[in-house]
């Protein structure tokens, strides 16, 4: 092969990973990250387009060819800093962004060959910067004396906290749980996003001077109004879309049926996968069924495998093509031996004499006309009911808006699904001085969109404070 003409294209560099048979027995991260050599080869594939379409696909306009050029020059720390100009959390986004539907989807190489592995390079430089211990603090401007309260320490809250403190404002983050990070801490498993990385990002903010107060649910005890009364000049709501959604079918409250939020929170936040070293228990089903086709379902089903399931099955009402999960997650789940049952929807759960789920009555579906989302709507096939035996179920069919903030903040406009109405460009809500962004505005979306919304709101809050 070496004697082929030198015009032979360099293939997209594969990501080194833990072997499927090994990794399904542990919670360590699955992709191991590029070596320096692989990163250099991959970076050499980039054409440095004059008109880089990849950037159009990035919700926060990262200078992609720019950082890849710095990789080629082995200036990894500079590359990380360049990304951080527009993306505060590259080590996280490099791991969890759906690149195939964003930057990589538009990369010109993708037309004939495979696109540049932009996400993997992003991860490489961010990890390089972090592990090299070269995360220096930027100089902060003189204090403006203005105080901002950020409610929720997910990607949106953490991003805006960083941006506002760098503009000289005093920032306090109020987080309901005992650990900051939002979905990054309680939802996404260790094998996909090591918690040490989230902790490092939080630690960086603390070193910048952000005050993070955990165990503070705003709306219970203190309200948004109380925050203003305490002297905060503006409030940002980044409380996520954290309410569980069930299907409201018979038997759904049987023991052994979890919402994905509960299942993942027990495993990730409470570290139930290390029970009894950690105190919180979790059911270890042998035949586990997970409902839904998104990232949350993949995370749940792969967690179940790691917790000892003999059989772990995704039940999804449409087909593989419609599954919203990242390609990589679906692929990893398949490699690990997850079974998929498409065009199927549960209609009822059956329990045993102890009130524990033992089976699920399902109905077959077929795809009909496209719905609002452009995907073909699944419709039940009459008379096609059948039984799936199962001893544990995780319902991962979406989440809703938690009502705590909307119901305790007078004058805050919400839409008919309970999400906060906010200006797309500024995050401004119907209440002066109150801004919002992330999942609580859009409904469940992505880390990068939450971060992008927070960046816009940071600019708007800065202007608001300078005017005031």
């Amino acid at each position, binding site marked *: 092969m070496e004697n082929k003409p030198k015009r032979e294209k360099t293939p997209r560099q594969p990501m080194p990973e833990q072997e499927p048979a090994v990794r399904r027995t542990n919670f360590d991260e699955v992709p191991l990250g590029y070596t320096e050599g692989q990163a250099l080869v991959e970076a050499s594939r980039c054409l440095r387009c004059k008109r880089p379409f990849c950037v159009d696909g990035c919700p926060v306009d990262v200078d992609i060819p720019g950082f890849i050029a710095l990789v080629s020059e082995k200036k990894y720390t500079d590359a990380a800093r360049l990304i951080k100009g527009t993306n505060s959390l590259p080590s996280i986004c490099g791991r969890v962004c759906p690149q195939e539907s964003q930057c990589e989807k538009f990369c010109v190489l993708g037309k004939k060959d495979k696109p540049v592995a932009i996400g993997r390079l992003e991860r490489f430089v961010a990890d390089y910067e972090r592990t090299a211990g070269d995360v220096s603090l930027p100089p902060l401007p003189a204090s403006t004396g203005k105080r901002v309260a950020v409610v929720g320490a997910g990607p949106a809250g953490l991003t805006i906290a960083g941006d506002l403190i760098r503009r000289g404002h005093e920032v306090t983050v109020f987080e*309901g749980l005992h650990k900051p990070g939002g979905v990054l801490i309680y939802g996404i498993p260790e094998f996909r996003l090591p918690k040490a990385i989230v902790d490092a990002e939080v630690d960086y903010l603390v070193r910048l001077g952000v005050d993070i107060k955990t165990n*503070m649910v705003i709306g*219970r*005890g203190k309200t948004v109004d109380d925050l203003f009364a305490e002297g905060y000049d503006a409030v940002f709501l980044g409380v996520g879309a954290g*309410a569980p959604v069930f299907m409201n079918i018979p038997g759904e409250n049987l023991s052994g049926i979890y919402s994905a*939020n509960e299942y993942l929170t027990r495993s990730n936040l409470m570290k139930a996968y290390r029970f009894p070293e950690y105190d*919180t228990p979790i059911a270890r089903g042998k035949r586990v069924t997970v409902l839904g086709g998104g990232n949350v379902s993949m995370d749940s089903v792969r967690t179940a495998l790691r917790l000892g399931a003999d059989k772990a099955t995704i039940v999804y009402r449409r087909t593989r093509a419609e599954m919203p999960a990242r390609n990589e997650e679906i692929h990893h789940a398949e490699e690990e031996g997850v079974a998929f049952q498409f065009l199927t929807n549960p209609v009822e759960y059956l329990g045993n004499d102890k009130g524990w789920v033992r089976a699920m009555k399902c109905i077959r579906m077929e795809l009909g006309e496209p719905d609002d989302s452009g995907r073909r709507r699944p419709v039940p096939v009459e008379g096609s009911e059948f039984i799936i035996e199962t001893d544990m179920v995780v319902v991962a069919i979406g989440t809703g808006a*938690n009502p705590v903030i909307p119901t305790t903040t007078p004058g805050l406009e919400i839409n008919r699904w309970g999400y906060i109405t906010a200006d797309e460009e500024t995050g401004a809500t119907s209440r002066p001085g109150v801004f919002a962004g992330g999942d609580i505005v859009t409904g469940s979306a992505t880390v990068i969109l939450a971060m992008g919304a927070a960046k816009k709101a940071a600019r708007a809050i800065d202007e608001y404070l300078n005017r005031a």
Partner: protein
Amino acid sequence: MSLIHKKRYLSANVVEMIVEAPDIAATRKAGQFVVIMTDERGERIPLTIVESDVAAGTVTIIFQIVGKTTTCLADMNPGDELYTVLGPLGRPTEIEKFGTTVCVGGGVGIGVAYPIAKALREAGNRVVSIIGARTKDILILEDALGAISDRLITATDDGSYGVKGFVSDVLQELIDSGERIDRVFAVGPVPMMKVVCDVTRPAGIPTVVSLNPIMVDATGMCGACRVAVGNETKLACVDGPEFDGHQVDFELLTTRLRMYYREEKEAMEQFRCHCDGK
């Protein structure tokens, strides 16, 4: 981190603790609870706020030692710090001037009934308290409830103190005696609350119960605490913990409370408290 100020045993396995939590003390209302973690590896467990002292910035909790976390908590002492005290959580008790109210407390539920009875009394209700336990030695808070009730009736299952019998029997007698009762509040073990509701249902007395399902976040995020009330599923941590007892599916609550029976036993058997010695 919250400093433990005081600890005392109310009976062999019921402990009263006063912990520092100034924000919670300042805003909490009757019927609300806190979530505590003893240490970073601990479980999040909900406990009712029994009393608060705004000036001292403290709240009082009363808990029964039933498993790993409560055993661990009972081993902690004044001067130690709790990893997490989160609250106030849950909807406050709906307090109005109802007229004559009866607060029924069983076992450690007497601690949960106390703040409700106190708030009812402060709102101008006539408060009759019926408290009971299996036997005299484990009956708690008799004096405290006596001080805020117009009438206090105590009962023990074995007759070692007060009336012999269940609190529900006492309530039945009270109803049968023709006493006008406008509302009943019942807190205690699930079977007790169920029987109280069976007693008040035919008499048509509105009855509020305080439910104790297993919780994780206790902020409405996870759905662990779901209970069936009427034909609806509710989240006890944000929609409750108090509900119309005549609508509650107690059987479901009982089975769901047993969900981790095996793991709870394992945790106790392997018990090594990692919260002390810090």
